């Protein structure tokens, strides 16, 4: 066959530029002193430092986990710098004081921060290396009582909320990477939606890694109080660099009675080159607690970047009638690896969860779905529906599925569907015979395959996700 489906051409990574900006980077290495330094730089209260140190002391005793279906060399945690910030005035009064190079960087990434260029309907928190650069639309959100700011600011300004909820979903000793994050996290976003408020804007955080030999350890905490509703989106990218960079984030979501949190991710960290050199290790812990009755947490992720993606955004369905959802598209091309999926823990009565996972492997990519659905004793009438579809493009890639099911209540109803298909020569030929190019044909077939997930994304980002998918599969067919 001469369609050249296997033909590999180096795809251009479009966000791989480096911003030349003077940065303050603490020397590589991790110790209690480094943690004290980070905490001091952030102007944190004592309780926060204590929490970090507790996490650190746990972390040093924890072994690095290796149960995932991915391969990578040893990570030298003493060779990473744990804090990098562009040099600027410590307290910014307004946007005019932000270094124009930073504004330019975000504009190049399609995230304009300046007032006249802002995306309509989306409030953005822009995080550059270890610090939040700016958060837009804050005043408008404040009118509704919504707090949306950098987490470092929330620790100073809203300590009562942070103390109550930080670590309440992902404890500081939850796992190796979560413990590391708890010790050294630098910035990230904080959102609080008060009772009965429907957030009028999409909240969004854009993470940009710029400095080399640094790690990114952001922490996000979103609290939806009773009867509130919020939709949040995170995006990310990083320059092209030859070394691997570690990104170990933690995201915690708390939904109280009748609250809904919709959390969408478009992950586009640098994936490394065609030989597997460079790229981000994306080792992230994300978990949402449906703490209240009738609460809902919905995760949607589109993972096209990173050398290795290793994460399981999950839901703890504590409240009766609560709902957890997970919609995922994970693409691995070239030598990318992904081991991703979700955990749905049913505790309350009449809890429901839905899992729709689409894995696409091209080049020499390896794609693993791993998911756990656990129905606890008290979770009467729990329901789960899982659907895991894998698509293979070419014959050097792999798809793997590990669904774990643990049911301890006989009233549970579980449905699981799985499929693996090779992208059809016949489908591609059919589309070509109608005049479409090979790339458009593949992009169309893949987009159709992912449609059930894309339709869960906020409108503004669904188009972006489709485009990104096209780019990340560029060169996977001839």
């Amino acid at each position, binding site marked *: 066959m001469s*369609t050249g489906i296997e033909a590999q051409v180096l795809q251009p990574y479009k966000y791989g530029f480096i911003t030349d900006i003077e940065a303050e980077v603490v020397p590589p290495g991790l110790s209690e002193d480094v943690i004290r330094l980070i905490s001091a730089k952030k102007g944190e209260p004592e309780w926060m430092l204590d929490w970090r140190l507790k996490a650190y002391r746990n972390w040093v005793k924890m072994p690095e986990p290796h149960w995932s279906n991915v391969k990578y060399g040893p990570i030298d945690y003493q060779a990473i710098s744990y804090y990098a910030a562009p040099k600027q005035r410590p307290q910014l009064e307004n946007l005019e004081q932000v270094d124009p190079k930073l504004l330019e960087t975000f504009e190049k990434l399609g995230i304009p921060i300046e007032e006249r260029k802002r995306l309509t309907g989306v409030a953005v928190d822009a995080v550059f290396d270890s610090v939040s650069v700016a958060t837009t639309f804050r005043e408008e959100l404040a009118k509704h009582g919504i707090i949306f700011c950098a987490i470092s600011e929330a620790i100073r300004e809203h300590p009562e909320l942070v103390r109550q909820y930080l670590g309440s979903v992902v404890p500081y000793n939850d796992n190796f990477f979560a413990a590391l994050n708890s010790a050294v996290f630098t910035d990230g976003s904080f959102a609080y939606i008060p009772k009965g408020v429907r957030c009028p804007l999409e909240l969004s955080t854009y993470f940009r890694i710029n400095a080399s030999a640094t790690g990114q350890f952001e922490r996000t905490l979103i609290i939806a109080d009773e009867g509130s509703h919020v939709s949040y989106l995170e995006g990310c990218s990083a320059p092209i660099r030859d070394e691997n960079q570690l990104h170990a984030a933690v995201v915690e979501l708390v939904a109280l009675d009748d609250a809904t949190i919709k959390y969408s991710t478009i992950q586009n960290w640098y994936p490394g080159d065609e030989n597997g050199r460079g790229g981000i290790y994306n080792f992230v812990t994300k978990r949402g607690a449906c703490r209240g009755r009738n609460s809902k947490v919905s995760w949607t992720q589109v993972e096209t970047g990173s050398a290795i993606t290793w994460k399981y955004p999950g839901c703890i369905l504590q409240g009766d009638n609560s709902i957890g959802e997970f919609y995922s598209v994970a693409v691995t091309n070239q030598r990318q690896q992904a081991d991703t999926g979700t955990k749905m823990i049913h505790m309350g009565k009449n809890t429901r969860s839905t899992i729709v996972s689409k894995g696409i492997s091209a080049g020499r990519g390896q794609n693993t779905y791993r998911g756990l659905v656990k129905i606890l004793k008290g979770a009467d009438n729990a329901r789960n529906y899982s659907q895991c579809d894998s698509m293979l493009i070419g014959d050097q890639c792999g798809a793997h599925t590990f669904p774990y099911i643990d049911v301890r209540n006989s009233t549970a109803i579980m449905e699981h569907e799985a499929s693996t298909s090779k992208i*059809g020569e016949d489908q591609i*030929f059919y589309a*070509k015979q109608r005049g479409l*190019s090979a790339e*458009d044909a593949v992009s169309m077939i893949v987009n*159709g395959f992912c449609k059930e997930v894309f339709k869960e994304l906020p409108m503004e980002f669904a188009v972006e996700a489709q485009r990104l998918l096209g780019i990340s599969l560029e060169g996977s067919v001839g």
Partner: protein
Amino acid sequence: MLLEIKNLHATVEGREILRGVDLAVNVGEVHAIMGPNGSGKSTLAQVLAGHPAYAVTAGTVLYQGKDLLAMTPEARAREGVFLAFQYPVAIRGITNAYFLRSAVNAIRKYRGEEEFGPVEFMDALAEKLQAIGWDDSYLSRPVNEGFSGGEKKRNEILQLAVLDPKLAILDETDSGLDIDALKTVAHTVDKLRRPDNATVLVTHYYRILTHIQPDVVHVLSNGRIVKSGGKELALELEEKGYDWLREAAAVA
């Protein structure tokens, strides 16, 4: 001359299926290619469209004076070659409307024409949809997914009508259609006949030729055209079957 095939040989998985096909099609003509199972009819259709599973081992194909075999499948389509598939594939998650519009726009773009927006396109589509007896609901369904055999064939003819090619190759479009559907499909195809285009109908049966009168009928047997004639040849085949031709070919 729109299409000129000379001494075409083609193999699939190393097996020779076409063993020296000669065929000339002028604009304004409808040619029927008939023949027993396994004679190479569908292979000929697939080779003309450029399916990668078939290897051309000898011969030439000129289309509008150009070397058709040197063109990619999408280039052939953009130049006006259309194949109505015997077994159309399904594309999940992509609506019929989107697929059709993408195809039309790919071709319009190639010709340097302005691409259709979604609304304009729907307007342009209404008449064609009516011709094959369909309502809008078929447009929002995923391409061929869950379609019956007959619906898939009708969908091919809808695409044919919308793309309006120079050379239409219909690969057993009539098989699997009931009498009414056959009539509708044949009528749509017949209405597309113009002095500046041509149709090659690959078929097993005489039936469709009562609705679409062919100018020339060819019999393909064992990878070669063994007999050509007017539309009366089709009737003769209907009465006598193919065996007498096979015997004649063996003697020759």
